[in-house]
């Protein structure tokens, strides 16, 4: 195995939590609200994809211990078609990482550093992440552990001071048109939940595998809880304005004013965002690098960290000419591609694998 590091199940849960929440807080409310209106705070509860992907990843790992999704697909489908499927998944990871970098860059440039070129903001982030990824899975996991307390404290620093400004009537009527709006509002969230498939790449390095299932459940619950809280806060402050702003949660942070001097907290929001997104980028970057090295049968993955970093940076620039196209892409193609690569393919793999096991078991 080309990675010798070991992580704990808890570290894996933290990595997943930080890999999913930060971007979900930023962009999801606006899209989710369009479908679910005042019920969009319920939407994160419909986490079907998260449960399905975690289940599939855990079962596949039980069938083929120590192997990740790419290796499993080679075992199950044979070398050639296995590699092909592996390429689709790997390319998605590459693309996804570039997408996250781009979202990060667009947000930082659009809302804060208006004069700075996008490539500088994205490039710096990729460079820092590359150094972390070179350190291996243990380093990425440690960063997650290090940043989680800061992430949570900053998050509470935004939620608590805004409470006096919240208006509970904005959430009424709850489920006026039944359960359907909240479910359709959760559609876009499934894209984020599907990222839980990443545990398939982390499970081989988990030292205490018995606790893995429990940690994953905990991670799912933590993500749901965070999203419900952030969505609810956004809704109770902005009401019908939620989908009018591109980054509603940023407005929440900007609106805080306690005792006239505790105000202008968007820098705090930016801190949350940079910390969380850093871990997110590192996790996906690491999976891309590791997977590519395995796919090409390289002896070490460290050699391709920087080349792939370059690819990610340029992908993030080529992805879309502007913010509008980026959002359009996310709402249309990316959603389907990601759900195919992260949900449909693993589920099919799982079905084939379990049929094979049963057939060979009967023999």
């Amino acid at each position, binding site marked *: 195995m080309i990675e010798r590091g070991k992580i704990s199940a808890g570290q894996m849960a933290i990595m997943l939590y930080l890999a999913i929440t930060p971007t979900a807080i930023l962009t999801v409310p606006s899209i989710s609200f369009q479908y679910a209106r005042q019920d969009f705070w319920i939407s994160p509860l419909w986490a079907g994809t998260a449960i399905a992907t975690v289940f599939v990843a855990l079962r596949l790992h039980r069938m083929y211990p120590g192997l990740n999704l790419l290796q499993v697909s080679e075992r199950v489908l044979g070398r050639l078609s296995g590699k092909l499927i592996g390429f689709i998944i790997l390319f998605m990871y590459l693309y996804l990482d570039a997408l996250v970098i781009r979202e990060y860059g667009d947000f930082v440039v659009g809302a804060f550093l208006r004069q700075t070129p996008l490539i500088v903001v994205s490039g710096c982030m990729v460079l820092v992440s590359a150094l972390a990824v070179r350190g291996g899975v243990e380093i990425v996991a440690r960063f997650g552990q290090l940043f989680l307390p800061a992430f949570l404290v900053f998050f509470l620093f935004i939620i608590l001071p805004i409470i006096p400004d919240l208006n509970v009537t904005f959430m009424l*009527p709850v489920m*006026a048109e039944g359960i359907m709006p909240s479910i359709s509002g959760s559609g876009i969230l499934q894209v984020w939940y599907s990222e839980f498939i990443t545990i398939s790449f982390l499970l081989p390095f988990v030292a205490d595998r018995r606790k893995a299932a429990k940690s994953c459940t905990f991670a799912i619950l933590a993500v749901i809880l965070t999203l419900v809280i952030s969505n609810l806060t956004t809704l109770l402050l902005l009401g*019908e*304005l939620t989908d009018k702003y591109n980054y509603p949660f940023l*407005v929440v942070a*900007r609106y805080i004013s306690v005792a006239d001097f505790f105000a202008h907290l968007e820098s705090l929001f930016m801190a949350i965002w940079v910390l969380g997104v850093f871990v997110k980028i590192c996790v996906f970057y690491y999976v891309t690098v590791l997977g590519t090295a395995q796919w090409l049968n390289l002896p070490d993955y460290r050699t391709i960290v920087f080349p792939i970093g370059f690819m990610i940076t340029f992908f993030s620039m080529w992805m879309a000419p502007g913010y509008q196209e980026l959002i359009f892409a996310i709402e249309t193609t990316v959603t389907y591609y990601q759900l195919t690569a992260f949900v449909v393919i693993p589920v099919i793999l799982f079905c084939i694998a379990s049929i094979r096991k049963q057939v060979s078991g009967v023999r």
Partner: protein
Amino acid sequence: MNNSEGMFVPMRKWRAALLLLFLCSQTFFLTGCWNRIEINDLAIITAAGFDLTQDEKVEITVNLFLTHTQGNVDMMGGSSGPGGSTPQSLVQSASGINLADALSKLQQILSRNIFWGQNEVFIFGETLARRELIEPMDFLTRHPAPRERANVFVSKGSAKEVLKLQPPVERNLAEVLRELAKTQTGLNITVKELAQMMAGKASAAVIPLVEIKKQEKIKIPIIKGTAIVKNGRMIGRMDDVATRGVLWLRNEIKKATVTVTPEDKEGYVSFELLKSHTELTPHIEGNEWSITAKIDTLDDIVENTTSINLLDTEQTKRLEEKLADDLVNRVNLALTRAQKEMKADIFNFADVFYRKYPKEWNQVKDRWDEIYPQVKVKVEAHPNITRPGLTGKNFLKRN
């Protein structure tokens, strides 16, 4: 072997030293000096006003906070303080085809970068407000610099005149207006709330009106009355008395002193409001839409010039009824103005109905403008007089 190792060690040391030097040199890029903006490069705006000029252009007027304390302000043009002391702010204006354009023109005449971060007040001139509020509001919500928590006002007359005032008490004009709005004797509306009302189901909004009051020689701004906004433009005004009714019905009243004259008695009794809560309950029966507004208040008596003994529960009850009548009248006054005359749903009845009757609302949401004036509103006031103050009967008065 010895030889090769001997060569190798200094090489590594050299490399390490070079790397260290290289890394240290990078710190020069981290100082932030590259894109530094010092405080004396900033034109800190504390209040901004928007007017419509005679040639149909938008004029932006800003109140700049002067970071230097001494200095010759007169040389920089702008305002002159009435008190003779050095004013701490400076007024500048520029016009353009829209706000963004006007702002760029303003930047041209300023030697410093416009900085919105501390801006607390936006004032719309009445002519501009009557023309349209959608364009300026789009700018204020889209541009990342102006803050959503800033207060908005409409000025009787031009916003520029208001911004030129030199307030005698507070540090600058923005502070005055913000504190005035915060006392809640009038409305207190932020950019976010205005955007919310304008984009909401009712599509009607209220903005506090600012007026210039002359007291002897000093001119001060006061908040008096309300501008009523419907479908993105101001359609009318409400006076001070009606505004109080608006506040009661919108459940935004915080401070109030109500004075009533008891029947068959001479003199007045004044109440100070301690607490008030207004609840709107919608009903739909057949085709008839109605709302019951229930106002619960808690009041203390602060003045009594009648001969009533306020410790007498019977009398207190009669006073409560009188107070209730007064409240209902105030609210009805506001209602008639908003509902029957201007037909603007500033109390957000639309949301009230939607919350309880989402299906019925969805059926009529395109015809809300027709239904709203027909909604029957029943106002019930339940005042509760808790304390007579420190004295009972007016003991200075002899009967």
